[in-house]
């Protein structure tokens, strides 16, 4: 069993919102005076609503927030730990405490080895200084000594691909060069523990590949990486274990795949089911009224996560209120860019009065990841569109596949079908 290198114990961080400890001297004096005389704080708000969601210690009143609430976990040496959670879940606060930018309110963290964080690259870059000067300055800010930086200088410059401009002030750099240089410095720190926060948003695909390769190297050399990202493919691919935070609390830890599922489920997926109670309020024309539209991955409930591989079932229930008129339903599937990915229609039929259900399936391994909207059109007599709804339902397709290290971003393409490749040898050269 490898040894524990980070031990987080009952870590909490409390913020007072709005008050900020009293902006004026007078407030602080009255507060201190009350403390001395044993009276309650004269400035604390009365009857602040404890938030139901986050009823940890003391509760959260309107101007109080426990950004982290009693979080404990261990990290083993050489482990790549993914930290996931929605915005505001406490990820950044946790990283800030780990990198000693701010102190916890209660609890303790014990660490073995040097921690370096890539919280945001390029910290302390001075625009007037040259690339070389900034490289040394930035390295020193991140905790390297001059000798260490000098030893790595060529490697860093090479990695950043800025040899030609190393003696140019960085204010003349393109933003790409700037970021590359900044990341290169940080990537060559060689700490025992590396904290990485969303660096994948940086640079082009080529550079991303390099960065991830570097991260992989760090991990394979037995060093520990804490990786915070919203890119689930990256977490899935790079991490061996993941923890999930929500509302400042640790809500799960384990296999990345399980955590990712849990994380994705935490998003409200209500939009995958659209329902109307009576024909009067329902969308439609004088022939058909839509009762409900359910979108679900094959073999799962409507609240399931739709992965790229899963076939998608779309179930439409409708009221037929006027018999004897030939109608059909047509769906247009639009992606985030508003591009129509596909259209599909039922056959034109004269329905009797009653409730009907029609189902269709979009095959798995077809759609790219992203958000989709369904546009509904009710067509009469096979030609005349008598009702149109531009966004009657929507759903997200997510990519939770694990890839070999390389590009981990979203692949381009309106569709992303899984196509089979077959390669064979057809002879020798000459």
């Amino acid at each position, binding site marked *: 069993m490898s040894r524990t290198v980070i031990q987080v114990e009952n870590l909490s961080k409390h913020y007072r919102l709005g008050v900020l400890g009293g902006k004026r*001297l007078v407030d602080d004096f009255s507060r201190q005076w009350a403390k001395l005389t044993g009276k309650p704080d004269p400035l604390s708000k009365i009857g602040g609503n404890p938030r139901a969601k986050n009823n940890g210690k003391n509760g959260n009143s309107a101007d109080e927030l426990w950004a982290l609430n009693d979080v404990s976990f261990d990290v083993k040496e050489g482990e790549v730990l993914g930290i996931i959670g929605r915005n505001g879940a406490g990820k950044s606060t946790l990283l800030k405490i780990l990198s000693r930018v*701010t102190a*916890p309110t209660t609890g303790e963290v*014990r660490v073995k080895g040097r921690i370096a964080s890539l919280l945001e690259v390029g910290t302390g870059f001075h625009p*007037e200084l040259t690339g070389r000067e900034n490289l040394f300055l930035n390295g*020193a800010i991140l905790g390297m000594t001059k000798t260490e930086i000098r030893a790595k200088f060529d490697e860093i410059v090479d990695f950043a691909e800025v040899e030609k401009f190393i003696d140019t002030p960085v204010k003349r750099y393109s933003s790409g060069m700037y970021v590359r240089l900044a990341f290169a410095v940080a990537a060559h720190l060689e700490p025992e523990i590396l904290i990485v926060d969303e660096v994948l948003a940086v640079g082009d695909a080529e550079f991303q590949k390099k960065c991830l390769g570097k991260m992989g190297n760090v991990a394979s050399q037995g060093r520990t990486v804490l990786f915070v990202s919203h890119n689930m493919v990256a977490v899935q691919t790079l991490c061996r274990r993941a923890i999930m935070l929500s509302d400042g609390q640790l809500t799960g830890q384990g296999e990345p795949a399980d955590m990712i599922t849990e994380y994705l489920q935490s998003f409200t997926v209500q939009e995958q089911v659209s329902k109307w109670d009576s024909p009067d309020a329902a969308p439609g024309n004088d022939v058909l009224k839509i009762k409900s539209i359910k979108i679900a991955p094959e073999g799962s409930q409507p609240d399931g996560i739709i992965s790229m591989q899963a076939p998608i079932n779309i179930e439409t229930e409708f009221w037929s209120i006027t018999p004897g008129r030939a109608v059909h339903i047509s769906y247009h599937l639009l992606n985030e860019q508003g591009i129509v990915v596909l259209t599909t229609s039922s056959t034109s039929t004269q329905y009797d009065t009653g409730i009907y259900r029609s189902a269709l399936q979009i095959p798995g391994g077809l759609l790219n990841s992203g958000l989709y909207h369904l546009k509904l059109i009710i067509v009469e007599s096979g030609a005349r569109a008598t009702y149109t709804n531009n966004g009657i339902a929507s759903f997200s397709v997510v990519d939770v596949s694990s890839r070999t290290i390389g590009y981990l971003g979203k692949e381009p393409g309106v569709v992303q079908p899984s196509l089979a490749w077959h390669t064979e040898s057809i002879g020798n050269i000459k």
Partner: protein
Amino acid sequence: MEEMAEIKMENHQPKGANNSEDWTLVIRPKSGWFDLHLSDLWRYRDLIIMFVRRDFFSLYKQTILGPLWFFIQPLLTTLTFTVIFGNIAKLDTDGMPKVLFYLSGITAWNYFSDCLMKTSETFNVNASIFGKVFFPRLVVPLSVVISNLIKFGIQLLLFLAFYLYFLLGDNNIHPTSAILLLPVLLLMMAALGLGTGILVSSLTTKYRDLRFLVQFGTQLLMYTTPVIFPLSKLPEQYKWIMAANPMTPIIETFRYAFLGTGTFSWGLLGYSAAVTVIIFAVGIVLFNRVQKTFMDTV
């Protein structure tokens, strides 16, 4: 780092932690008032040097006159003072050449006030860096004091040039053995400027008002130091105000060392040193206290 961690482990035994003796870092809510981590500063000495270089070299980049500005500033101030206070208001200068009198005062005062003003902005100006990376925060004000020392050195050369000119022209000025106190005076000015600066800086994270106070407060303070008129020419009933300012004995001694006139008293200098030590100590302790959580308040 290692020694520090061991000291910490002595008064803290985590329950159930295996091989607890080799944690290199323990992050805890609050450290003691006197848990100053000064050894960290030594580990980050390269960073101090690099900040000094940055401050110094980036200052006059893309200016036409460049480092000449180091001379222009005190020269013009001296000229202004000589004309207004010396020739128009006819203030007495203890019989010293007016230019030398003002230039010496300005050179010394500038070092103190630059240290004070720049270090008092430590937290506000560096909030974005401090918010992302950890390094001993004291590195920043220390580097300010050092880069200003270089500037002071350059301006001292200017003063010495004038000084030699007047010395050779025999203007009844003569250096005294107090000149040996120069390093001590420098140290006192640096410590006083740094101490006051970081004290103000620590308080401004909570009370922004202080930032404005520093601006003109430093200016007002100059009038209670003998930059413009000597301590000896002040009416008795006002003398104590000026003497209470710890910068007064420093500037008086500075002048006395080079020019041989002025007020020199071990008592006053001792008083000034005591105040300096107290302000410096309080500043360091408070700064250290604030640095752990100031990110939550800015």
